């Protein structure tokens, strides 16, 4: 049924009530047409053969593969361990020329203050204008995929809402070894479909001009990945 429920959000604009009765008829008619279309010649039941690779090949160096694939997108990747984490992050931020960094609410990324940058917490939520004016943002991620060089954000406390990693022109993403998986199927299995997700593979890019890839359109034009392994 097509009930238009935009009143629910208490939106400011005056809301006109469209006529939902006729639209209910549309649903019935569409489903009827589809059933008719399938009535005489329903295709045979097709079992989905999932014998494609669901896990990485044994012996893959996940960390190395991930670093290589991220770099293929012309994103910058640096590896660090707990002993040189702050130092490495500081080097990346210096290279990016970023002095103030938006971070999600909570303490997960508080250690970044030790690099000397000023941290701006998204708490209370920043306006889009503030975010747009921000020099950069730092987040962690939910999962990272080695084979495709992809990081996945799902709005967890170490990542914040989607707009954070979108409007600032620089994104520093901290990836921990335990977040790394080999393949796309492994990533899908780990993720919760009910959380809003953003899969990020390199900086914003376009192939719209002569089908040549150009990095940098609307999303962050520079992506730095700090790989903690």
């Amino acid at each position: 049924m097509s009930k238009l429920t935009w009143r629910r959000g208490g939106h400011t604009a005056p809301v006109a009530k469209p006529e939902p009765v006729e639209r209910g008829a549309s649903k019935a008619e569409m489903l009827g047409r589809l059933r008719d279309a399938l009535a005489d010649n329903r295709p045979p039941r097709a079992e989905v053969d999932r014998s494609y690779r669901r896990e990485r090949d044994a012996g893959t160096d996940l960390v190395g593969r991930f670093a290589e694939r991220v770099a293929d997108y012309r994103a910058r990747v640096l590896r660090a361990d707990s002993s040189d984490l702050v130092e490495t992050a500081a080097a990346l931020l210096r290279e990016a020329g970023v002095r103030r960094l938006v971070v999600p609410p909570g303490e997960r990324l508080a250690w970044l203050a030790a690099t000397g940058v000023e941290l701006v917490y998204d708490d209370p939520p920043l306006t889009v204008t503030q975010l747009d004016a921000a020099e950069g943002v730092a987040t962690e991620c939910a999962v990272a995929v080695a084979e495709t060089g992809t990081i996945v954000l799902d709005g967890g406390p170490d990542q914040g809402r989607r707009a954070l990693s979108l409007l600032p022109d620089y994104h520093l993403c901290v990836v921990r070894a335990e977040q790394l998986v080999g393949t796309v199927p492994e990533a899908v299995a780990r993720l919760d479909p009910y959380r809003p997700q953003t899969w990020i593979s390199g900086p914003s890019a376009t192939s719209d001009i002569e089908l040549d890839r150009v990095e940098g359109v609307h999303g962050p034009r520079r992506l730095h990945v700090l790989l903690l392994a």
Partner: protein
Amino acid sequence: MTSVQPYPRAVEPRPPEPTFLGMPPFPEAARTALSDAQLRANLRKATHTIRARRQAVVDELPDWERLRAAGAAIKDDVLAHLPRYLEQLEASVTAAGGTVHWARDADEANAIVVDIVRAHGVDEVVKIKSMATQEIDLNNALGRAGIAAWETDLAEMIVQLGHDLPSHLLVPAIHKNRREIRDVFVAEMGRVGRPAPAGLTERPADLAEAARLHLREKFLSAKVAISGGNFAVAETGTVCVVESEGNGRMCLTLPDVLVTVLGIEKLVPRWEDLEVFLQLLPRSSTGERMNPYTSMWTGVTDGDGPRHFHLVLLDNGRSDVLADPVGRQALRCIRCSACLNVCPVYERVGGHAYGSVYPGPIGAILTPQLRGLNQHDVDAQTASLPYASTLCGACFEACPVLIDIPQILTRQRAQLTDLGRGPAHHAEKAAMRAVDWAFGQPWRLGLAQHAASFSRHVVGRKGRIGKVPRLLGGPLGRWTAARDAPAPPSESFRSWHKRTAGGLEEP
């Protein structure tokens, strides 16, 4: 969050956007395209670039064929149980706080979207590139309702600003090169918002920067966004949009209201099915291991993204396609455009010649079906599309969901001829009957061969037939306009074989 707009909005009067209505049949449109040397150079460069990229990333997956088979099987499952999965999707989207609408055709879908936009009291919307909304000509419907729709995908923006038509599923401005794009930006950006930067060069990075600046103000001020969707998961209600530039993320994240127009074939049953398509699509499409950004959302989420989510389920001819047991394969399509990029015909003539928002091989099978070829008579332009192919099979080979495009093309030709519809004029039918008569009996074929052999004395010169006047020649005239034809030999194989007992009694 009201942002100051330093540039004229200049949304009115916006001229209506061009449509494909009234395009000539394919051979005629192709002739025009072929005579455009710049267009052919642009297309050649772009298609060859993307072909090489696609092949490289496809070759590195050892299980590519298994992924294709799984992709096809998942889509076949969707199609076989489409009513059930649609109702399941509606229930899961509704449970997650979204609203689902059902649209039988373009007019109904447009009316639903216009109503939603009006209800929120705005007169402009931002749009993510979407084939479904192009198919229903949503921008013009919004325009008639006094609502300006801004395309935010770079290529769509190039097409919109240039008052042009899209010519490719993925890169609608593929027919334009960088210099032409620069010219459009310089001439048009200032009329609808922030002008192109002074001294804009034709470097792709500079053009992308100009688009970034021009669109940023629109993203920050938009209240309503309109998108299509690449996949929708029936089980969870999750909708997925695959993109590159980040304009999609802007539209999906910043406005209060999100309206997604989704062809009903875009469903997948289960969350895990995305693991197949998120491998097939980017590699087939832009030739990347993964596209830069993929967004997934399930209904609405407190404190993150739009507060209102509307999902419009669009039929608009799809149920007719579903009724054809062979043609329904076309509904597996995930709009990757690999078939366009490998098609030798598309490479030469470009997308406009197909006279539809769906160009190339997939367009040649999908457009006629959406326009009712399986059910009733169609116009001459539509009827010309199934013949716009050499049946070389490169499209089938590249298709990530195994759509047997050549098979559907020959089926549509059969629908056009056997049922007495379509462009096959009387001469062709008569010729086919004559050939059929000759093939009915070997002696008749022999007779025809004698006639052919005799004709060499009339038309052949040094064993070759040069240009035959078009009016005189019929098919021979069309053949010899560009290439010589061999003169028929003095003796057919059959005659030789009889005369010499298969060469044993040859002198």
